[in-house]
């Protein structure tokens, strides 16, 4: 609203600038060639007095300029039809100005202007509440900073968990490795790296991840994250008893208000009691984005997978992925499902299928540009682009 008021004021000023002279008698000043020649004649006398030109030259110059002066005076007299200003002409002019100037400006502005877009100076953007700011922009800010200061360990440490939350597990792994290399090993960093590795492996505690957790627990026997994941590793290996033992120990030493206690208890219940069919396989408190509860493999499947050998396990996972693919091809509106499918193919090393799935997803979600962008981002993150 303020904007349009200012526009109105600007238009008024612009119109005023051209209409105002119409209401006034113009000052009939201005130069003429006659004046210039008169000045030139005076100049000759000055030059002569200063001795810059000789008398003979001054005389012939005077003759020439006098001729021009006469001609100019004649022309002026001949052209001196009295200047007149018809009232109707002034009115038409004023009306034209009042119509044309705002019409041109408004006509263009309505086509080209963006009155609703707020200013976003760097200052304003930084002072915006973080909630108003897209995570992407924050991340890219930190990334830019790290690109020019790659040795800023603290920066990597800030960025890594954000990557994990965004589902960029591989980036999180790389970031934690850098943080460890720069800031040194610590139990907390090792367990965080392990967690990222698990997320990158779609919830499977790989040997690499296990090593990270073991290093962590070696440094700090009370590290809850490491304790939980090592238990999960046992569970995935089919050793429910070992898993249960680890988790019980974890709960025994837990401070009374530990936020993760309930979560571990749930896991404990899963391995000790008969597995409840509907319990989601949450692989970790912080990896929600990496695996998705609603469409994740059932816990029983995970348990089953843990007891199989490598070939069988792969076959089972492929089966589950195929199942997901079939479901999505029947009903393609589930964005989380698509993301999961693309990521799964990528994790399985099947780049072509991952690309196909991404293409299918984009086709199915063609009406939702935001979601297509998420697909694109994922494709980029997974290095599938190009």
């Amino acid at each position, binding site marked *: 609203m303020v904007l349009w008021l200012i526009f109105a004021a*600007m238009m008024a000023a612009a119109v005023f600038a051209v209409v105002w002279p119409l209401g006034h008698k113009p000052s009939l000043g*201005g130069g003429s060639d006659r004046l210039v020649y008169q000045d*030139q004649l005076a100049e000759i006398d000055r030059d002569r007095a200063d001795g810059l030109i000789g008398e003979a030259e001054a005389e012939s110059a005077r003759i020439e300029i006098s001729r021009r002066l006469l001609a100019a005076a004649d022309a002026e007299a001949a052209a001196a039809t009295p200047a*007149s200003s018809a009232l109707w002409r*002034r009115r038409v002019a004023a009306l034209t*100005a009042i119509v044309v100037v705002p019409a041109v400006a408004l006509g263009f502005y309505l086509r080209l202007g963006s009155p609703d877009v707020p200013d976003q100076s760097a200052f304003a953007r930084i002072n915006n509440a973080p909630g108003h700011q897209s995570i992407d922009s924050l991340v890219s800010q930190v990334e830019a900073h790290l690109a020019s200061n790659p040795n800023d360990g603290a920066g990597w440490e800030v960025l890594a968990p954000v990557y994990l939350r965004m589902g960029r597990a591989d980036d999180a792994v790389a970031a934690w490795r850098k943080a460890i290399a720069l800031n040194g090993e610590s139990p907390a960093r090792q367990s965080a790296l392990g967690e990222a590795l698990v997320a990158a492996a779609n919830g499977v505690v790989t040997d690499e991840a296990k090593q990270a957790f073991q290093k962590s627990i070696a440094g700090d026997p009370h590290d809850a994250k490491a304790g939980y994941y090592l238990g999960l590793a046992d569970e995935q290996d089919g050793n429910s008893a070992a898993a249960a033992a680890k988790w019980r120990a974890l709960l025994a030493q837990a401070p009374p208000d530990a936020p993760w206690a309930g979560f571990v208890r749930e896991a404990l219940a899963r391995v000790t009691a008969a597995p409840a069919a509907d319990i989601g396989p949450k692989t970790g408190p912080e990896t929600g984005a990496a695996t998705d509860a609603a469409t994740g493999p059932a816990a029983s499947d995970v348990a089953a997978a843990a007891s199989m050998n490598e070939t069988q396990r792969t076959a089972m996972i492929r089966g589950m992925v195929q199942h997901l693919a079939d479901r999505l091809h029947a009903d393609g509106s589930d964005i989380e499902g698509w993301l999961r499918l693309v990521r799964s193919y990528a994790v399985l090393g099947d780049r072509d299928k991952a690309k196909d799935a991404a293409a299918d997803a984009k086709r199915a979600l063609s009406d939702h540009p935001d979601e297509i962008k998420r697909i694109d981002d994922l494709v980029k993150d997974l290095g599938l682009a190009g």
Partner: protein
Amino acid sequence: MIPELGHFALMLALGLALVQGIMPIVGTRSNDPVLMSIAGPAALAQFAFVAMAFTALAVSYVTSDFSVLNVYENSNTQMPLIYRLTSIWGNHEGSMMLWVSILTFFGALVAAFGTNLPVVLKANALAVQAWIAAAFELFILMTSNPFVRIPNAPFEGQDLNPILQDPGLAFHPPMLYLGYVGFSISFSFAIAALIEGRIDAAWARWVRPWVLGAWMCLTLGIAGGSYWAYYELGWGGFWFWDPVENASLMPWLAGTALLHSAVVMEKRGALKIWTILLAILTFSLSLIGTFLVRSGVLTSVHAFAVDPRRGIFILGILVVFIGGALALYAWRAPLLKQGGLFAPISREGALVFNNLFLTTACATVLVGTLYPLALEALTGAKISVGPPFFDLTFGPLFIPLMAVMPFGPLMGWKRGDLLGAAQRLLAAAMLAALATAAAFALEHGGPMMAPFGVGVAVFVMAGAVTDIAERTLVLRLPLRAALRRALGLPRSAWGTTFAHFGIGVTLMGIVGVTAWGSERIAEIKPGASLDIAHYRVTFDGTFDRAGSNYRDVVGRFTVHRLNGELIGNMQPSRRAFPDRNMATTEAALMSRGVNQLYISIGDPNKDGSVPVRLYFKPYVLMIWLGAGIMFVGGALSLSDRRLRVGAPRPAKARARGVPQPAE
């Protein structure tokens, strides 16, 4: 809100330009002084709104408002404030804004300070100026809008092209544009004269300050661009006959011709129609220059296809303005009254000679610039018209011009005395011969012609001094009297002397550096040294240095004389810009008098050695020093508000067959 206000202000300026382009003309056709008087306030208001738009854009750049697409694409919060400001015109859209800002600024100047102008001429000229402004404002809004917004501003901008992150960019484009666009005023006056169908000697007086001002800015702009290319591109060259450079040289040549023919017109009432044509051509060449640089034709003919609308739009502007102006000229010029007559051997004759050679040189450059483009467009063949072409064509045109230049100011108006002038130049000629001989004796190597080039340069400088010595009679009168005469001389006479002297200085620099410059190219390890001219340059090693948005790998070099005396050290660097993934070469320069040592380095190798280009550039600073002197000459002349009278030499009894007195 600020970008939107700027956007709207630009649109209002367009509306005002349309009114300013039509009403005053209606006024002059119907002899209505009230309608004519709209032109002034409209021009001032139009400038105010364009300035507001430019300021809004500047504010967006300074505050890094990336909701403005143009800012996002060309700026970055990491850049120092000065480059955030200069990046306004470091891109297409912003530089067009600068163009229009300067155009309307000149219009406003005419409106505010043109009080000595006849009302009709002023109204018509401002109307023509408004047409040009309207065309370019429309161009900006339709194809090159810097106020396009992005709803969700990205967090970081894309940075300015690193090559342009240099103080040179703060200075060079605005100067160049002041020159280019300044010639729009003489164009507008020429068209106004054609519309009115009346032109006389007084016209030249009214146009003179505008031509001079534009010429001065263009001179500095070209020199600045040349110096910038010299130190920033890392090749040590000061002029490449690159089409972009030629685009600025052509208006300068035509403008220089215009400057001289306008003098003839003002003082003698002759060459009127020719002057009008030159005024049209000069600005047309500015437009062509803008077109060549801004349409993308230059990088490749095919760049047209990238954004054809821009190229075609500017082409349209070109056709309408140049074609329209020339058509108007063809129609109206025969109606204008011819000017006075003069003998071929006279000041006028010398100035015609000057015009002839300058315009021919200009045509040569035009052909050399456009022919390869036309050929590529028509046949797809890529040819390169480089220095050999221009050395063969431009040089032979310019050297005689230089050689004849000192004669001009020494000859009388209307009928001159060639022999007398030659006698007075005898001392200068002897000095030139001496300089030639000295050059042969002292300098070794270089082309055979080089000492003669030195001779011409010295002749030009000595000729300029001779002229002022003749006027002040410094050799014949006592010093005090001569000094009084010198103070009494019109400043424009001093202006001529300075400008002509400056040309000689520049010529000297060009000849010296091209003939006797030397270079060494090598990969050297720390501790090793290279000898060049009479200097020994030792490489001490490299170190890293961080800047605001770049990182430097700096090479440290120590310079000694060959006899071992330490002179100083030089630190050229390779500058990497991570945001653009680009690197630039920052050469190090060391001035010794008017000579320079020049070092640029490449990326260091793994074994610690670096590729080094080492140049010795004798006389090189004289090139730009000369341009500075020319600028001072122009400023002296501009500050001289006295009337100009070319008092003719009276015919002597023995002079037979000379033309009749003027008019």
